[in-house]
C-alpha cells in the first residue's frame, strides 16, 4: 500500500465525505469521528510521502498507470517543495476538525453533516492542488476548494456570512477563470498539460517563452492565482469572508486556502515556466516586489485600524501574502527569497491556524469579538492566552518561533537581491505586528474591566455554558488541545528550521538549478 500514498491521501477524505453523506444524515454523531479518521489516514499518507521524498527524491505517481508518453495521463508529483506542505495541511485540518464540535453555530446543528461533507471536500481539494503535476488538474481542484469554501462561509446563520460568501464567490470565480484562460493559452502553444512536459517544451525552445501567447498565459495564471490568495489589489473579499464565517470554518479556511494558492504560484514559477526563463524574459519582476511592499504596508495599516480580533488577523493575512509573493519574486541568485517563501507557507499556515483557533476559543467562551473584550483574559483563560501569545510572537517574528526564521530568510533574499524597500517593509511590518500584539497582550494581562467585558460576552455569546466571572474558565479541551499543539508546532518548526530549509532548498535546486554567480 505504501506505493499508493499519493492516491490514498485524497481518497481518504473523499470517501470520508461520502460516508458522512450516506450515513451521517441519519446519525449526526458519526460525522466527527469519520472526519477525524479520514484526516488521520491522510496525515499518515502525507508523512509517508514526506519520508519517501526525503529518502529517494521526488515521487511520481501516474494515475491509471498512463506513464508513457508524458502528458497522456495525469501525473501526481511530490517533491521537497510540496511534501512538507501536505503534512501541514493534514495537521491543520485535524486541528480545525477537533475544534468543530458544534460547527455551524448553536441553532443550525441540523446542518452538521453538510458542514463536514464540505469540510472534507475542501481538504480533498487542497491536497489535490498541492500534489498534482498537471496544470489543468489544478483548476479542477481549485473549483472543488472554492465551492466548498463558499459553502463553509455561508453555512453560518448570520446574513452577513451569506453576503461575504457571495462577494468571495464573485472574486473567486473571476480568479479561477483567469487561471483557466491562462492554462488554455499555454496549451495552445505547447500542446501539453503536464507540468514537467510543459517545462521541458519551454526549455527546449527559448523563442516560445518569449512569445506573446505564453507571456499572456503567464500573466493570466498569475493574476488568477493572486485573486485566490488575496494579493494586494485583489484582497477585498478576504476580510469579511474569513471574519464573519463560523469559527470552525475560519480555522480551516484562513490558514490553508491562501497558502495553498501561494504554493501554486511558486509551483508555476519554478516547475512550469522555469525561474531562469522568467528572470530572462520578465522585465516587470520588480514591480511585483513593489506590489508586495504595498500589500505589506496596506495589510499592516489595516491591522492597526482594526477593532475586531478576527478583522485584525485577516488584515495580517494580507500582509503575510505580501511577504510571500515578494519573497518569491526577489530573484536573488542564491534563491533565499524563494526558500523563505516556501518555508513561510508552512510557518504561516500553522501561525494563522494557531491565532484563529485562539480567536475561536475566545469567541466561544467569552463572546470576545472586539479587541477590548480580551481584557483580563490571562486570568480567566491562562492556557488559551498562552497559546495565543505564542502565535502572536510567531507573527511578530520572535525566536525561537518559526516566524523569526522565515523572516530571516526572506530578508536575506531581499538584501542579496538589493530590494531594500522590501527589507524595510518587512522590518516595518514586524514592528507594527509587535505594537499590535503587545497592545493586545497588555489588554489581556492588565485589562481593567473584566466585568464589563462579560456584559459583552452575553451579547455576542455563541456558546455560553458556565459563566463565573472570577473563576478560571479555560476553553473546552477540544479547543485548547489543538491550540496548544499548534503553538508547540510553531516552536518546533522554528527550532528545527535548519533541516526543513535544507530539505526545501534541495527541492528548489532540483527543479531550478541555482545560476552560478559568474554565469
Amino acid at each position, binding site marked *: 500500500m505504501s506505493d499508493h500514498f499519493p*492516491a490514498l491521501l485524497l481518497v481518504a477524505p473523499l470517501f470520508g465525505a461520502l460516508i458522512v453523506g450516506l450515513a451521517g444524515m441519519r446519525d449526526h454523531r458519526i460525522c466527527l469521528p469519520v472526519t477525524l479518521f479520514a484526516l488521520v489516514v491522510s496525515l499518515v499518507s502525507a508523512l509517508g510521502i514526506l519520508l519517501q521524498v526525503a529518502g529517494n527524491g521526488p515521487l511520481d505517481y501516474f494515475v*491509471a498507470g498512463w506513464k508513457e508518453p508524458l502528458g497522456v495521463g*495525469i501525473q501526481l508529483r511530490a517533491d521537497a517543495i510540496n511534501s512538507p506542505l501536505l503534512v501541514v495541511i493534514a495537521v491543520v485540518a485535524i486541528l480545525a476538525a477537533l475544534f468543530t464540535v458544534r460547527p455551524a453555530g448553536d441553532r443550525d446543528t441540523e446542518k452538521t453533516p*453538510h458542514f463536514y461533507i464540505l469540510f472534507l471536500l475542501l481538504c480533498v481539494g487542497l491536497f489535490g492542488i498541492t500534489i498534482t503535476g498537471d496544470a489543468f488538474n489544478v483548476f*479542477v481542484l481549485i473549483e*472543488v476548494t472554492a465551492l*466548498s469554501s463558499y459553502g463553509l462561509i455561508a453555512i453560518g446563520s448570520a446574513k452577513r456570512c451569506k453576503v461575504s460568501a457571495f462577494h468571495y464567490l464573485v472574486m473567486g470565480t473571476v480568479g479561477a477563470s483567469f487561471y483557466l484562460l491562462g492554462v488554455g493559452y499555454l496549451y495552445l502553444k505547447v*500542446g501539453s498539460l503536464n507540468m514537467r512536459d510543459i517545462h521541458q*517544451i519551454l526549455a527546449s525552445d527559448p523563442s516560445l517563452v518569449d512569445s506573446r501567447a505564453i507571456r499572456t498565459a503567464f500573466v*493570466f495564471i498569475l493574476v488568477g492565482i493572486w485573486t485566490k490568495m488575496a494579493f494586494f489589489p485583489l484582497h477585498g473579499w478576504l476580510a469579511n469572508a474569513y471574519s464573519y464565517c463560523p469559527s470552525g470554518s475560519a480555522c480551516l479556511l484562513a490558514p490553508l486556502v491562501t497558502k495553498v494558492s501561494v504554493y501554486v504560484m511558486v509551483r508555476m514559477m519554478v516547475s512550469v515556466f522555469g525561474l531562469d526563463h522568467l528572470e530572462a524574459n520578465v522585465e516587470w519582476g520588480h514591480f511585483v516586489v513593489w506590489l508586495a511592499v504595498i500589500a505589506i504596508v496596506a495589510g499592516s495599516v489595516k491591522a492597526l485600524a482594526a477593532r475586531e480580533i478576527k478583522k485584525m488577523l485577516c488584515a495580517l493575512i494580507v500582509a503575510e501574502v505580501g511577504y510571500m509573493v515578494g519573497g518569491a519574486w526577489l530573484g536573488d541568485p542564491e534563491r533565499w527569497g524563494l526558500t523563505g517563501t516556501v518555508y513561510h507557507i508552512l510557518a504561516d499556515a500553522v501561525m494563522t491556524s494557531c491565532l484563529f483557533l485562539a480567536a475561536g476559543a475566545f469567541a466561544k467562551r467569552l463572546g470576545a469579538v472586539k479587541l477590548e473584550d480580551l481584557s483580563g483574559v490571562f486570568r480567566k483563560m491562562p492556557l488559551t492566552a498562552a497559546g495565543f501569545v505564542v502565535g502572536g510572537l510567531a507573527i511578530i517574528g520572535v525566536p525561537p518561533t518559526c516566524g523569526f526564521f522565515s523572516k530571516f530568510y526572506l530578508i536575506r533574499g531581499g538584501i542579496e537581491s538589493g530590494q531594500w524597500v522590501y527589507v524595510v517593509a518587512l522590518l516595518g511590518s514586524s514592528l507594527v505586528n509587535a505594537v499590535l500584539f503587545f497592545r493586545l497582550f497588555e489588554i489581556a494581562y492588565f485589562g481593567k474591566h473584566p466585568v464589563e467585558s462579560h456584559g459583552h460576552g452575553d451579547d455576542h455569546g455563541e456558546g455560553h455554558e458556565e459563566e463565573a466571572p472570577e473563576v478560571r474558565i479555560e476553553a473546552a479541551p477540544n479547543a485548547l488541545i489543538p491550540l496548544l499543539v499548534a503553538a508547540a508546532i510553531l516552536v518546533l518548526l522554528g527550532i528545527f528550521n535548519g533541516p526543513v530549509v535544507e530539505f526545501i532548498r534541495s527541492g528548489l535546486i532540483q527543479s531550478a538549478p541555482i545560476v552560478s554567480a559568474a554565469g
Partner: protein
Amino acid sequence: MKAKIYASLAVVITGAVLLYAVTDFPNFGDPHSPANAGVKGGAPSASIYYIENTYRDTKVPNLVTAVLADYRGYDTMFETVVILTAGMAIFAILRVLRRDEDTEEAAPVDRSIDGDHHRIIVGITCRIAVPLIQIFALYVVAHGHHSPGGGFQGGVMLGASFILIALSGSLSDALARLGESSFIRLACIGIFIYAGFGFLPLLVDRNFLDYGALAGLLMTDGEEMARSHSMLGVEIGVAMTVMAVMFAIFANLSTRGRLQGGL
C-alpha cells in the same frame, strides 16, 4: 457610476490583452498546431497518442469518452466531485431545517382544483414525454463510450425529466419520486461508484483508477475490455450524481430551501 466605469475599464483592458495574444495563435483547425501535433522538433502531442492508440488501449470507439473517463479520468472524477460540492453548498446555504419556520408556510398551496383544468394539456404531454426522455437519457449514458453522450449528458437529461414533472405538476409530485434523502444519497453513491472503480485497483497493487486491474472482477477477456466496461460503470456513477444534484438545486432554489409549496 464610478464603479461601473472602473469595471468597464478592467473588462476592456482584459479583453485587449486576450486579443493581443490571439494574433500569436496557431491557425484555427491547423493540423500542425502544437495542441494537435506537438511542438516542432518535440515529441508528438497527447492528441496524436489518443488518436492512434485509444482503440488499442481501451476498445472504446469514442475517443472523447476514453480521454475523459480513462486517460484523464482523475480530472473527471473531481469534476463530478465539483458537482456534488455545489449541491452540498446549496443545501448548506438554502435549506431551511428549523421546524418553527416551517410552520409559517405549513399550509401547502392547493393547486389541484384550479390547476387541473389549466394543466391538463401540459400534464398529459409531460406524462408522455417524461418516460421517453428518461429512456433516451439511459441510452445516452449506456452508449456514451460508443457514440456521443455519456454520464454528464445523460444525467442532465434525467435531472431535467424530474424538473419537468415538477414544472408540469407540482414539486411534491416530483419529490414523491425523488425525495430529499434520496437525492443526497444518490449524489454520494454516484461518486462512490466512480471512486470505487478507482479504489479497487489499489487492492491488487495497481495505480488508482487503473481499470485494467479489474479484468478478473469484471470477467472480461483482456484488460482492454475491462477498461471499456469500467468506463460504462463510472459514467453511470456520474449520471447518478448529476441527476440528483440538478434536481436538488432546482428544488432548493424554487422553494427557497423549504422543499414544499414552490412553483
